[in-house]
């Protein structure tokens, strides 16, 4: 089996385990009642997304499979929580559409990590191209759900997410851990731009639901 497939399979087996373990995440969404609640929740989830992703890729770079599997599972639990939040606002259909779309970009980061670890330049380029293309899809998804979110603006923010996180992954590959953590912090901080835009647009769309 190719290294990419091994890593992918490890990620997704971990995802399954943690999706079961975190089956109660819908309850968390029940606490989101105001715009402020929503903004805090989305900020926490998206920052956590970056930190767990960087944790997973960091373990992967060191060949620490047990730790990687746990981090990948926690990352997927975070994805499920994000999907639950989307479902709270836009319904189960949107939740079900969001989750595979979101997981897809995580797969591209896995591809990037694997290619970087194996010094596969073409693989790295392909993963970056996939992430850039994904940004367009994600922008279209959020714009379809909420016209207050311009697709191009969202796509630009997602591309920046790809740039900041792949930079952290590169530092991990170079075993430059101070730089890796510095870039991880920057990548996590960047997510606030997405979180605030998303939460603000949802409040604008549903003032009666989150306006207080």
């Amino acid at each position, binding site marked *: 089996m190719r290294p990419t497939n091994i890593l992918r399979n490890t990620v997704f087996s971990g995802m399954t385990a943690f999706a079961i373990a975190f089956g109660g995440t819908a309850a968390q969404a029940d606490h989101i009642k105001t715009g402020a609640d929503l903004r805090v929740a989305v900020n926490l989830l998206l920052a956590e997304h970056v930190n767990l992703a960087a944790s997973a890729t960091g373990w992967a770079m060191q060949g620490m499979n047990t730790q990687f599997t746990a981090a990948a599972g926690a990352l997927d639990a975070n994805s499920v929580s994000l999907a639950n939040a989307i479902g709270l606002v*836009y319904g189960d*259909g*949107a939740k*079900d*559409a*969001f989750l*595979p*779309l979101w997981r*897809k970009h995580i797969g591209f980061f896995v591809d990037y990590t694997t290619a970087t670890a194996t010094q596969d330049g073409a693989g790295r380029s392909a993963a970056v191209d996939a992430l850039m293309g994904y940004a*367009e*899809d994600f*922008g*279209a*998804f959020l*714009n*379809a*759900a909420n016209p207050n979110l311009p*697709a191009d603006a969202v796509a630009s923010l997602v591309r920046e997410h790809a740039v900041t996180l792949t930079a952290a992954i590169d530092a991990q590959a170079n075993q430059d851990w101070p730089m890796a953590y510095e870039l991880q912090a920057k990548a996590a901080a960047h997510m606030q731009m997405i979180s605030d835009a998303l939460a603000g647009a949802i409040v604008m769309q549903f003032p009666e639901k989150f306006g207080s």
Partner: protein
Amino acid sequence: MTLRTHSLLPGLLITVSILTGPVAAIADASGNTVHQIEISVFQFQPDTLDITVGDTVRWTNRDGIRHSATAESGGVGGQAFDTGLFGKGEMQEVTFSEPGTYSYFCTRHPSMTGMITVSG
């Protein structure tokens, strides 16, 4: 099976939708039944549909990105169809001439799936 492409134009269909809500099926000028599926927020709505031989299914893309309705190979139905990717405000139609169960998906977003059951 026939495949047709349209641009979405405001007209009677839109007017009816506004007045009465989503219209599941209408009759075209020839009296044939046309079932409508909206593609919105990366979902086929409805995602399952029961029709009869000779009916037409019309997909309308409301998302700001191109989607397709593409039959999975190896299905029960005897016919394959692929609308190809089409953009926001565009419509694609397929007329089903063979009974069967047709599972389909979007080639760009394979997690988007739907099923059409065609009875004789």
